[in-house]
């Protein structure tokens, strides 16, 4: 409204100014340097011409009428009277008006052409900026969303919505909201139609690729020529297609990666399980066929058999636990346990291996008991010890310790291996991640830390790693001392019993 008022104001002002200019010409020609009627006529004509060229048709017509009246009054005899009857008056008026019309028309046209050229230049620049953005876009993620933002930014539009029927998502961009166009967008994407509202404030158009609609786009006050709009839509189509291709490529890469992971995992499992089986088969077959006759040797083989059966049993239980955790059915069988007992239990299992690598157990004195699932916690602890032994050099010590701090009990396994870079410290908790850092690519499933973290989180705790490259690693199971709210009743009950 105020805009229109300003327009009316400026138009009235320009009419007044036109009249004032003509009056000025009259003043100069009549009073300052009196001239004859012909010269005055030319002066008026020049004024009308300039007004027409500078401002437009209506201002120059007002000026023409004013010029005709003043010319008649001051310069045509009888001077200082208004007599229209003289045909000279009509000739003058006609000349002024024709000049006004032709001059204003010519200048308007020139002005319009300039404006058009400028607009086209701006459109071209914007389309170029947009196509550059598309070409440089790398990630497949949020391709369409990014596109909508890019359009709103580049064309300075208050609102843009890009609709993708394959995902059913409306990607909105721009500062303003644009409610109630979803139906129009869906229709455009389905039927490939274009919709423009009566005032040209909203355009909803289909995005086509090879004649087939693949989405739709809503723009508010786009002020775009048809060809620019078409070019914009084509760019969006190319971008969407590119995003789909990128997605397909990364999916294929993902599938290939998961295939590689599976075969690595199978290798690791084969090795883990076949090792005790090898010992068992060799010992059992030696005993069965009488390849070993000496009694002490037979005793030795039976001992190995017994130990390897335990180890295999351990592996199978771990595999089952792992599968249970994997399936997301982690049911905690909690009870009160002394942290140092958990440490010594696990240390005992590693007795055979610790002949190669000293395994120290150093719990701080007077630790409070923790309310945990002992089987699962031992499993998590075993993973840490396994890793420490795998990734550190033979002969270097591995230490297990426990301490209490900030209402949490920490069970810590420390090794003096190559350490873990900061970049790898989060990655190691992902499934199937195996670092190449250990001496000679250690075997393993890459599941250990993921499982340990899963177990600790189920207890309301976490697995914490502290390491510097080249200076060993320290993995801690952090167990909260307070029991989670839901377990309070059971906790107290069991606590009182003890």
């Amino acid at each position, binding site marked *: 409204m105020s805009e229109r008022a300003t327009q009316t104001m400026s138009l009235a002002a320009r009419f007044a100014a036109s009249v004032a200019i003509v009056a000025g010409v009259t003043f100069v020609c009549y009073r300052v340097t009196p001239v004859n009627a012909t010269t005055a006529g030319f002066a008026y004509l020049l004024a009308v011409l300039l007004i027409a060229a500078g401002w437009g048709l209506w201002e120059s017509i007002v000026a023409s009428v004013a010029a005709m009246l003043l010319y008649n009054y001051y310069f045509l005899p009888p001077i200082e009277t208004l007599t229209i009857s003289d045909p000279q008056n009509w000739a003058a008026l006609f000349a002024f008006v024709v000049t006004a019309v032709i001059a204003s028309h010519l200048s308007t046209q020139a002005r319009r052409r300039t404006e058009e050229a400028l607009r086209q230049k701006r459109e071209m620049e914007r389309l170029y900026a947009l196509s550059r953005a598309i070409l440089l876009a790398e990630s497949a993620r949020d391709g369409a969303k990014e596109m909508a933002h890019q359009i709103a930014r580049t064309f300075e539009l208050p609102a843009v919505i890009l609709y993708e029927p394959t995902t059913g998502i409306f990607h909105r961009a721009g500062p303003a909201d644009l409610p109630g166009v979803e139906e129009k967008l869906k229709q455009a994407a389905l039927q490939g139609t274009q919709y423009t509202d009566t005032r040209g404030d909203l355009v909803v158009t289909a995005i086509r690729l090879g004649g087939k609609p693949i989405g739709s786009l809503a723009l508010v006050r786009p002020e775009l020529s048809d060809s620019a709009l078409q070019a914009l839509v084509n760019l969006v189509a190319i971008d969407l297609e590119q995003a789909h291709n990128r997605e397909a490529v990364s999916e294929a890469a993902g599938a290939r990666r998961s295939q590689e992971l599976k075969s690595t995992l199978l290798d690791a499992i084969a090795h883990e399980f076949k090792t005790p089986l090898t010992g068992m088969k060799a010992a059992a077959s*030696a005993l069965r066929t009488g390849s070993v006759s000496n009694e002490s*040797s037979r005793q*030795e083989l039976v001992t190995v058999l017994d130990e390897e059966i335990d180890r295999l049993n351990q592996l199978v239980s771990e595999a089952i636990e792992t599968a249970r955790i994997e399936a997301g059915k982690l049911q905690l069988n909690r009870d009160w346990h002394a942290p140092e007992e958990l440490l010594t239990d696990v240390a005992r299992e590693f007795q055979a291996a610790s002949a190669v690598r000293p395994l120290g157990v150093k719990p701080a004195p007077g630790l409070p008991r923790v309310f945990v699932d002992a089987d699962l916690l031992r499993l998590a602890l075993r993973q840490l010890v396994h890793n420490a032994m795998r990734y550190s050099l*033979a002969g270097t010590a591995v230490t297990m310790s426990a301490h209490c701090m900030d209402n949490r009990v920490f069970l810590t396994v420390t090794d003096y291996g190559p350490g873990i870079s900061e970049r790898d410290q989060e990655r190691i908790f992902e499934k199937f991640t195996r670092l190449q850092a250990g001496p*000679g690519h250690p*075997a393993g499933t890459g599941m250990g830390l993921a499982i340990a973290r899963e177990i600790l989180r189920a207890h309301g705790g976490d697995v914490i790693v502290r390491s510097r490259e080249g200076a060993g690693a320290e993995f801690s199971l952090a167990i909260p001392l307070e029991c989670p709210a839901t377990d309070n009743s059971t906790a107290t009950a069991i606590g009182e019993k003890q």
Partner: protein
Amino acid sequence: MSAGRILVVDDEPQIRRVMRTTLVANGYEVDDARTAEEALEKLRTGRYDALLLDVNLGDANGIELCRTIRRERPNLEPSILMLTVRNTEKDKVQALDAGADDYITKPFSTPELLARIRAALRRMPAGATAAPESITLGGTVVDFAAREVTSRGIKTRLTVKELDLLAYMAGHANRTLTHRELLQAVWGPEYGDEQEYLRVFVNRLRKKMEAEPGKPKFLLTEPWVGYRLILPR
């Protein structure tokens, strides 16, 4: 008297324990190593008739170790038996290519292991091959007594099985020998289907004695049947 000295290289303490017990009970002298480094150290100081080498060592790849031993210690020719959980054709060929003499898949039975060790340590009695003391094939001289091949001035040693295979073929020169016959004569009566062994060993021999191993002139393949050694008379 000891039946032979054996070095067991495995990172698994329990497997070393079982092997040591059974091998000692069967009259072998046994030494063991946990790592590739330890194994190389022991080979530097001691003499062994056979190596039992695990492919999956904690700190190294057994196949690499096998290759290193064959490359760095060409004057020692212990028989090398690879132990591994994998049993595809590709894995076997890879192990044999690296210089192993035999290949045992885990888990194995003790009698099988003992039979393989016997086969590896078995030397063909002199005269059994009916081979001459030395043969000349073009520019290559094979000296069976010295276990040496001299090809264009370059001397190379033959491993036990390479020597036995070549000696047997020289004793039956200019005749096509079937896969089974060769395997049973050189490795032992328990063998017969391990054609990949022959393929790898014949390739190893060709590299040592043929001018163009890819286009052999003397050690020829008889497709589907076996091999033939051309001995110019």
